[in-house]
């Protein structure tokens, strides 16, 4: 029986690996995730069989409750709310690991070897940090908490003390495993650390934090695997841990920030947004209307649409797709350029556009489309700013300096659909607004694009 169990776990691990491999292409992705689903099903069923399913009804009840909640959330959730959901799910993964580790811990007889004890401590710590950290990230994304960074006095010293405390409690716990107080102290320190770790990080940096917590939720599962010496947990946890870490790195690169800077930099603590544009000579900007923009669209052959989060906030994805269709029907070449940090989590903008039926083969990554702007008639920037700000290339003292941007300024005409002249998250003024080839169309993204569609239909 033990062989059946172990080989089933091995098979499940292989299915997870295959599933992730199939995620390498949009064509096979769905099939891949189904393979992973079978792997999960197999692992769960074999565990139930081996542990003697006939006995405890409570296991089935627990599964039905959790599964039911999961199913409802998955069906109801809006695609714009995906970041919150992933954040919350990261937290659930963390708390599950903590609970399993603590459940093992109170079963201790006192005869456990030191390594078991250490893995339990590790599991309690990672699981709890993931849990409270994810709850804070969720609260910030959901708007329950303000997105602005919260920095306590002596914040870093507090964090260091919490970590040192955890290590001390951990050592005490290893020395006297029967004193439960030490485990509680570890959990408490980890819970506070999870909070103090996420509160100083601003709303704009949340994509990095979710990716990092995603990685932690994997590590928490792996730590539980260490406690139980269960390889399928270790392998799955390691895969998720690696995945989260890569996404974290990609997000940091796309914002030209180091992870240390994101975690400890507390960007945006001072309200320096006001001075954007001041100082230099006040250039004037001509405001155009959607009708003006529509007239330009009559004469062009190619357009690259650059969507930003402002588009999603205005819920303008569907009408944008309609605009794309109309332009395509007129023989205009329509492409979408997606910056890696467009949206609130890695890949978010792609999902939002896919939901609006924009086919994925017209969505281009930054590196694949940046050379095409110079041969493009119109770059239509909707609800984006920092990711197209040319200051990132030239202005050395800018917070954006060095960030990879979309080269919209190389296009013959640049159209900005924007609510105001305000600067982006980075607080850096965009000189492109004042360029002669730029048309500023002010207004809510949905209203402007709708007006654009209307006037294009009329003529």
């Amino acid at each position: 029986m033990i062989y059946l169990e172990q080989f089933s776990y091995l098979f499940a691990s292989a299915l997870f690996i295959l599933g992730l491999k199939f995620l390498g292409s949009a064509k096979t992705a769905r099939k891949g995730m189904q393979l992973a689903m079978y792997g999960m099903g197999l692992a769960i069923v074999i565990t139930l069989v081996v542990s003697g399913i006939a006995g405890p009804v409570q296991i089935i009840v627990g599964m039905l409750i959790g599964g039911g909640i999961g199913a409802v959330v998955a069906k109801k959730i809006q695609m714009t709310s995906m970041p919150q959901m992933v954040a919350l799910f990261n937290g659930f993964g963390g708390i599950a690991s903590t609970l399993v580790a603590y459940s093992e811990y109170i079963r201790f007889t006192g005869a456990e070897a030191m390594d078991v004890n250490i893995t339990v401590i590790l599991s309690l710590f990672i699981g709890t940090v993931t849990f409270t950290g994810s709850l804070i990230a969720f609260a910030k994304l959901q708007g329950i908490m303000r997105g602005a960074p919260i920095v306590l006095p002596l914040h870093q010293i507090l964090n260091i003390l919490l970590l040192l405390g955890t290590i001390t409690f951990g050592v005490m716990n290893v020395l006297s495993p029967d004193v439960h107080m030490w485990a509680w102290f570890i959990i408490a320190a980890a819970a506070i650390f999870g909070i103090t770790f996420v509160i100083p990080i601003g709303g704009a940096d949340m994509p990095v934090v979710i990716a990092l917590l995603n990685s932690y939720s994997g590590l928490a599962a792996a730590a539980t695997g260490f406690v139980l010496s269960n390889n399928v947990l270790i392998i799955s946890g390691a895969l998720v841990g690696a995945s989260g870490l890569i996404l974290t790195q990609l997000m940091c690169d796309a914002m030209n920030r180091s992870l240390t800077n994101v975690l400890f930099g507390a960007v945006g603590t001072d309200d320096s947004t006001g001075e954007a544009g001041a100082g230099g000579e006040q250039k004037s900007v001509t405001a155009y209307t959607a009708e003006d923009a529509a007239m330009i669209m009559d004469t062009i052959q190619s357009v690259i649409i650059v969507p930003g989060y402002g588009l999603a906030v205005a819920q303008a994805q569907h009408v944008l797709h309609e605009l794309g269709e109309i332009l395509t029907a007129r023989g205009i070449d329509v492409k979408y350029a997606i910056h890696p940090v467009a949206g609130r989590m890695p890949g978010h903008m792609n999902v939002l556009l896919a939901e609006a039926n924009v086919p994925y083969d017209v969505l281009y990554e930054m590196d694949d489309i940046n050379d095409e702007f110079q041969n493009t008639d119109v770059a239509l920037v909707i609800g984006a700013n920092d990711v197209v700000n040319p200051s990132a290339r030239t202005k050395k003292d800018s917070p954006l300096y060095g960030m990879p941007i979309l080269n919209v300024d190389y296009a013959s005409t640049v159209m900005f659909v924007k609510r105001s002249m305000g600067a982006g998250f980075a607080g850096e003024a965009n000189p492109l607004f004042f360029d002669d080839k730029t048309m500023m169309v002010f207004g809510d993204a949905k209203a402007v694009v709708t007006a654009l569609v209307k006037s294009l239909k009329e003529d």
Partner: protein
Amino acid sequence: MESLIVSIYVFTLAVFIGFELITKVPPLLHTPLMSGSNAISGITVVGAILAANSNNWGLSTVLGILAIAFAMINVIGGFMVTDRMLGMFKKDKKVEKGE
């Protein structure tokens, strides 16, 4: 101690496989990747079942059941939402015909 060494072995190799596989996932699919990995990290349910599996009701069993519920939210919710999302990704019909 021996089992810990084996665990570290398995973990390290799996991390390498993870890095190899994930670097090949296109940015287009990064959100489904994250929700999918939510689902996969729900594998903790296996550990939770083992923890809850006892006929003597105690704190340990109760914690196990709670863990099962949390992990199952991830498993079911994660896989369902990922599938829902991947179902939205469509190729351009016109382009497909032209091929």
